[in-house]
């Protein structure tokens, strides 16, 4: 009786193990042991580009997308940034477009000197086509206005 119960319980586990082995061979990303579904880098890029390329996207969704994108530990691919800039054009929001470029510059972190010039070069066609200025051209790479920090208590 107990033996039957144990064999019955182990059967689904055995089939799961077999499934996992076959799935592991097919997955291209580094092996992790979490139960969350993994997506590859290309899938990630395609997902975000498709999100920003939606013709009926509105300002709320662009901002949410940008905030979420900045939450990931990566510098987004130029295609995603171009798609976001074109989305800004569709909703007629120039300030948002400049903010996107600034945010991507910020995402470069301490490798800004290596990554940011390349990034600008890649999205330059989109910038020229839509007439968006980079923060440097607007003079926003240096501080323009002064605001007292709320944490200055003196």
């Amino acid at each position: 009786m107990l033996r039957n119960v144990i064999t019955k319980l182990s059967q689904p586990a055995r089939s799961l193990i077999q499934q996992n082995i076959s799935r592991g061979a097919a997955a291209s990303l580094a092996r992790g042991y979490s139960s969350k579904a993994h997506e590859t880098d290309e899938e990630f890029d395609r997902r975000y580009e498709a999100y920003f390329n939606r013709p009926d996207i509105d300002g709320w969704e662009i901002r949410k997308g940008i905030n979420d994108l900045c939450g990931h530990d990566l510098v987004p691919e130029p295609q995603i940034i171009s798609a976001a800039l074109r989305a800004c054009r569709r909703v007629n929001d120039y300030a948002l477009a400049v903010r996107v470029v600034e945010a991507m510059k910020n995402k470069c972190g301490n490798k800004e000197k290596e990554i940011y010039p390349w990034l600008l070069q890649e999205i330059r066609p989109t910038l020229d086509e839509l007439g968006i200025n980079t923060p440097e051209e607007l003079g926003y790479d240096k501080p323009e206005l002064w605001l007292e920090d709320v944490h200055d208590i003196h």
Partner: protein
Amino acid sequence: MAGTVLRASTRQLLVQRSHLLAPVTGYHARAKVGNRDIVGFGLNGEPTYVDRGDFPCPAVRFMENTADVYSMREKEKTSWIGLSMDDKKALYRASFCQTFAEMHAQGTGEWKSLTAGTIFGITLALWIVILVKLYVYEKPPHTLSDEWKAASLKRIIDQQQGRIEGLSSNWDYEKKEWK
């Protein structure tokens, strides 16, 4: 068939209900928003404005909508290539309070006044030490004078204190000098 219809209607009811709840949750934030556009999710869904490097797009525009802003928005709808630099900057400042450069450049130069204050405090303390030594302390005891110390050392050597490993072991008794 009937089950799906029932489920759809309850879902609609729940959606309507949540619309009733939504204003209550953001009540105080909404009251302060005024004429500003609520444009995004922001940090947490509340219509607040925060300049943060990791949340580049806040939930509300920075400036309220006035007649100038409306006319700028009309210009924005046409091609951006024709906009002047001033227009572009004005559009940016209407939506955002600080640029990223301003956000990250919060140097006040306070370190200079702090360093100066620290050095001044140390100087003050050292002055107190000097003045206390000059005016407060009495003369040191006579046993600390050089003659007394020399006589004391002579006594130690004469008594052969520490003859093997201590002080007198360094004194050459034949030549009457230090080894």
